[in-house]
C-alpha cells in the first residue's frame, strides 16, 4: 500500500544564503531551486560545509534566506513574522535533531505531545496510540528522557515530529548518534511513516546507509545542488560518493 501525495510539501526557489559581509562573506547557499514532493522521503547529502544544514534550516523557517523564497505548502516564509513562523513550526513542521531532542523535565509521553501541549490542543488519541505502538514506546511513556536509551530518545523525537501530522518533517542527522541497530529501527520507522501514512520527510545525513532509506537524494556541494538520485540503495550511494570524491 502506497499513499502517494502529489502536491509539493516544501519548495525553495533561487535560495541564496550569505553569512558575513564583504571579504569574509560566505555563500552557504548559492542559488538553490529545490522541490520536496508530498509523501516523499528526501535525503540531503553533501560534504561538510556544502550547505546541507543551512538548506534544511532555511526550508524549516529556523533561518532566513538572503535571497529567494521558501514555501511550506502554499505559505511563503519570508513574509512571516516571528509569531506566524512559530505557529507554522508548531502546526505544519516536525523536527528531529541529531541530539538533545527532548525536554528533560517532561515524560516521554509529554515530549511526544509537546507541540499539542504548547498549542493547548487535544491530541488525536488513536493516532498517538498508533505511532507509539509502531515505535515500541508503549512501556516507556512515563519515563523521563534520562531514563531512556539513545535509540528510544530518538524514537520519542520521531513520534513528536509526527504527532501533529505536519506538512513536512525535517530531520538533521537523526541517526548520527545511534548504533547501527537503533539507527536501522529509527530510519525504518521513518520510511514506514512515508509509505503508510503519506508523511513527507526531509533528512540531512552524511551516512550512505541512512540515505538509502529515502526515495530520493539531493547532493549538495558549495551551496549548489550538484546531483540527484532516485530510489537509492546504500551501494549506489557509496558508489556515487566515491565517483564524486566526497
Amino acid at each position: 500500500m502506497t499513499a502517494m501525495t502529489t502536491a509539493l510539501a516544501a519548495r525553495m526557489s533561487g535560495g541564496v544564503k550569505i553569512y558575513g559581509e564583504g571579504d569574509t562573506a560566505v555563500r552557504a547557499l548559492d542559488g538553490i531551486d529545490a522541490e520536496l514532493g508530498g509523501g516523499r522521503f528526501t535525503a540531503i547529502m553533501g560534504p561538510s560545509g556544502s550547505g546541507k544544514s543551512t538548506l534544511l534550516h532555511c526550508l524549516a523557517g529556523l533561518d532566513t534566506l538572503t535571497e529567494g523564497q521558501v514555501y511550506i505548502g502554499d505559505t511563503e516564509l519570508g513574509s512571516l513574522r516571528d509569531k506566524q513562523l512559530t505557529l507554522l513550526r508548531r502546526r505544519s513542521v516536525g523536527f528531529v535533531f541529531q541530539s538533545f531532542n527532548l525536554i528533560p523535565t517532561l515524560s516521554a509521553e509529554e515530549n511526544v505531545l509537546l507541540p499539542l501541549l504548547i498549542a493547548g490542543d487535544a491530541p488525536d488519541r488513536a493516532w498517538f496510540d498508533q505511532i507509539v505502538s509502531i515505535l515500541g514506546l508503549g512501556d516507556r511513556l512515563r519515563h523521563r528522557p534520562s531514563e531512556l536509551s539513545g535509540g528510544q530518545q530518538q524514537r520519542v523525537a520521531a513520534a513528536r515530529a509526527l504527532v501533529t501530522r505536519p506538512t513536512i518533517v525535517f530531520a538533521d542527522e537523526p541517526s548520527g548518534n545511534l548504533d547501527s541497530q537503533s539507527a536501522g529501527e529509527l530510519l525504518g520507522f521513518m520510511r514506514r511513516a512515508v509509505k503508510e501514512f503519506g508523511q513527507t520527510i526531509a533528512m540531512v545525513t552524511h551516512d550512505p546507509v541512512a540515505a538509502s532509506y529515502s526515495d530520493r537524494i539531493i547532493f549538495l556541494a558549495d551551496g549548489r545542488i550538484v546531483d540527484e538520485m532516485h530510489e537509492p540503495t546504500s551501494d549506489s550511494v557509496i558508489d556515487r560518493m566515491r565517483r564524486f570524491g566526497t
Partner: protein
Amino acid sequence: MIRTALKTVFAHKLRLALTALSVMTGVAFIAGTFIFTDTIDRTFSDLFADAFAGQDVVVQSETEFDIGFAGPPPFDEAVLDTVRGVDGVAAAEGSVAGFAVIYDNEGEAIVPQGPPTLGGSWMEDEQLMGNIRIREGRRPTAPDEVSIDASTADNNELAVGDVIKVQTPSDVAEYELVSIVGFGESDNLAGATFAGFDLRTAQRLFGLDGQFSSIVVRGDEGVSPDGLATRIGLALPDGMEAVTASSEAEAQSESLSESLGFLRTALLVFAAVAVFVAAFIIQNTFRIIVRQRQQELALMRAVGATGSQVVWMVVIEALVVGVVASIVGILFGLVIATGLTAVMGALGFDLPSTTAPLALRTILIGIAVGVGVTVAAAVLPAVRASHIPPVAAMRDMDVSLRMSDRARLVIGLAGLGIGVALIIAGLFGDVIDLGPLNELTAVGIGALLVFLAVSILSSSIVKPAAVFLGRRWVLLVITVITALVLIGGGLGLIGFGVVTGGVAIVGVLIPALMVLAIGALAAYLAWSVVRDRFTPGLATENSMRKPRRTATTASALMIGLALVTFFFVLGDSIKASAGAAIEEGLRADYVLSVNGFGGGFSPALAASLAQQPEIAAVTSMRFGIWDRNGSEEFLMAVDTGTIDETVFLDIRQGSLADLGAGGVFVNADVADEQGLTVGDTIPMGFATSGLQQVPIVGLYREANVVQSNYVVGLDFYAENFEGFGTDTDFVVAVKAAEGVAPETSRTVVEAAAADYSNVTVRDQAEYRQSQQDQVNTVLVLFNALLILAVIIAIVGIANTLALSIFERTREIGLLRAVGTSRGQIVRTVSWESLMVAIIGTVLGIVVGMFFGVAVTAALRSQGIDVLSIPGGQIAALVVFGAIAGLFAAILPARRAARLNILEAIAYE
C-alpha cells in the same frame, strides 16, 4: 565560534557583575554607616573643642553618675566668689542652663525632632562665652530680651527687633529679640534650638534663683589650665569640682557620641542582614557556575590538575569578585553616608556638610566583610568542584557532591532545634544559664541558625510547594490580585501626580510607569493562564529540577521578609496591647504631651490647669534616667495625690500614700523576675544625689500610660533630679470634674494649652491613636532599612534565573523550534520566578511569625500581653512577594525569549 565565545565571556561578566552587586550593596551599607557615624563624631568633637574656646577651667557639681541629659546639678552662686579669689584667675562667671522653647511669628512653638530645646544665660565677659558669637545685634541685658541661634532665626524668618514668645519652666512670655548668635562656623548646636537670656532672668525662668549650673574660668596669661584647675579644686567646697575646659569638651563630645552609639549599632545590624542575604546569593551563584563549568574543570583534572588546584581556581574567582565589589561598595558607602546625613538634616539635625572622613578602619572592615563573605560562600561550591571526576569531561553528567536527603534533614532539624532553643533561652534568659553568651547575642545566633536550617530544610518542600503553586487557579488568583494592586497603584500614582501637578508629575511618572509595566505583565499572565496549561506545568517542572537552587534563592528573600513579618507582628501586638491597656489604665479624659521625640514642656501649664474649676485632677509626670549597677534605667515620677484619679496603676501591694512619702513602686512582673518584693531596697544612682538605697514600697501592673517599670513621687524626684531636662513635665493627665460636658472641658483644656503649641491635647481615643502612630513610624523606618536586604534577594532571584536559562539554552531552542512562542517562554520564566518568590515569601512569613510570637511572649512583663497577627499586612506581603517575583523575571524572561533558535540548538 568566536561570536559564541565572546557571548560566553560577556555572559560571565554579567554573571559576575550581578554577583558582585549583592556583595557591593551590603558593603556599601556597612561603609556608609561607619562614614556617617564618623561624620557625626567628628562634628561633635569639632563643635565641643570649639565650644570651650577662651575658657580654661569649668567648675561644676561633682557627680558620681554621669547619665542621661541632665548634667551635673546646680549649686549655690556664692561659689563664684571663692573661685574668683583663687590665684591666677583672670575672669570667672557663672551661668545657668534650662529648658526654653522658641516660638515663631505665628505663635507656633519650634520643636526640633530629637535635639533639645536649650536655654542659657549670657555673661558680661563675652570671651567667656566659648564659641558663641553674636552675628547681629547685642547681648540681652533686660528681663524681656532674648537672643536666639542663627539656624532657628533663618528657618523661621525671625529678625532682630521682633517680639517673640519663649516657653520656659516658669511660663510662656514675650521677649524682644535683641541678637542672633552662631556657634563658631555653625548656625546651631547640633540641631538644638538656643535661647539666651541675661543671667538674672535666666535664673528666674529656670527656677534657679541664686544658683549656677556651672562657672567658667579664664586664667591669667601664662597660667596652665591644669594647675589652675587643681588650685581651684582645692578651694572649692565638698561636692564641687574644677576640670579643664579641654577635658570637659572631650567628655561632652564623647557622651553625645555615645548617646548616638545605638544608631550605629542599629544601622550595622541592618547592614549585617543585607550581607547575610548577599552570602546566600553568592553561594548559589558559585554553585551554579561550578555546575556549568563542570566539563571544563573535569578536563583540567583529566590533564593533571589536582583537586586543590581546582578549589583555588574557584576561590580566586571569588576573591576577585569580593575585592572589586568591596572597593566599589566602600565608594558607594560615601553616597549612602551623604544620604543618611541628608535624612538627618530633614529630621532637624543640622550636620555641617563636611566631607565624610573615610577612615582606614572603614576600608579594612569593608574589604574584610566583602571578601570574607564572598570567599566563605564560595568555599563549599569550590570543594564540590574539586570532587568532579575527570570522566565528567567526556559526558554531561551531574556529579555535584551533595548531602543525602537524610543527612540534610538531620542537619537541618538539628540546626533548627538549636536555633529555636537559643532564641528561647535568650528571650527568657533567666530560665537557662547561657554562660558567657549575652542574651541578645544568643537570640541573634539563634535567628541565624534558624534561617540557615530553614534554608537547608526548605529544599524538601520545594516540590509540593511548586506543585501547589503550579495549579492554574492558584496562579490565576495570585496574578489577578497582583495585577489589580499594581494597575490600581500605578494609576493612583499618576492621578496623584496630576492632582499635585508640576514637579510631582515628573517625579511619579517613572515609578508609575514601572508599576504599570509589572501590572501589565501580571495581567498578561492572568489572561494567559486561563487558556494555557502548558507553561505553568513547565515552570513547575523547572523549579523542581534543582530543588536546592530554588530553595536557596527563595531563602534569600525569606530572610528580609521574615524580619518584616516579625516587625509587623511585634508592632501590631504592641499596638493592640497598648490600646487595650490604655483603655483600662487611663482614667483621665485628656493627655497632654509633646509630639514625637520633642521632650517635655513647661510645668506652668499643669499649674494653670489645676486652677480651672472644670478640672478635677491634674497629674504631672516626669521622666528620669538613673543608674543601676552601671546600666541605665528609666523611671516615671507622678503626682501621688492625683494619680489615682487619672491613671489606674493596678496597685498590687502598698499604697500611694507610702509612695508620696518616698521610696519606689516596681512593676510586679519585673519585681517577680528579679526576686524583689516590698521592703527590699534597690540601689539607685542619680546624677544629682548620687547612690541611694531606695526601699520598694509597692508593686503595680500598669505599663502603658506610665511607660516605665519604676514609679516614684514628685517630691522624691525633686530631691534626686535637678538640672536641664528635669525641669519640665513629660506627660500631664487631666481629669474633668464631675458633670462637666466633654465639649466644655475640652475647651477649657485647649484654652489653657493655647500658649503651648508644642503640646498636643488628646482625649483617650486620640491618645491611643497617637501611641499606635508612634509604633507605625518605627515600623516604617525599620522596614525601609530592610528594603535593601529584599532588593538584594530580588537581584538574586533574577541572577539565578538568568543562570538557569543560560544552562537551558538548548532546551529553550528546542522548545522554540517545535513551536513555542516567545510569549510562552516569557510566561514560563515568569511563572518560575513567581513560584520562587512566593515560596520565599511564605517561608519568611512563617519564620517571621515564629520570631514575632516568641518575642511578644518574652515581652509580657513589659505590658505587651496581647498577641496580634496583622492579617492584612501579611496578605499584602504575599502580594509584595509576587511583585518581587515578577520584577525579578523581567530581564531573564526577555533574554530567554530573544534567544536565537539556531544558535541555541547548536549551543554546547
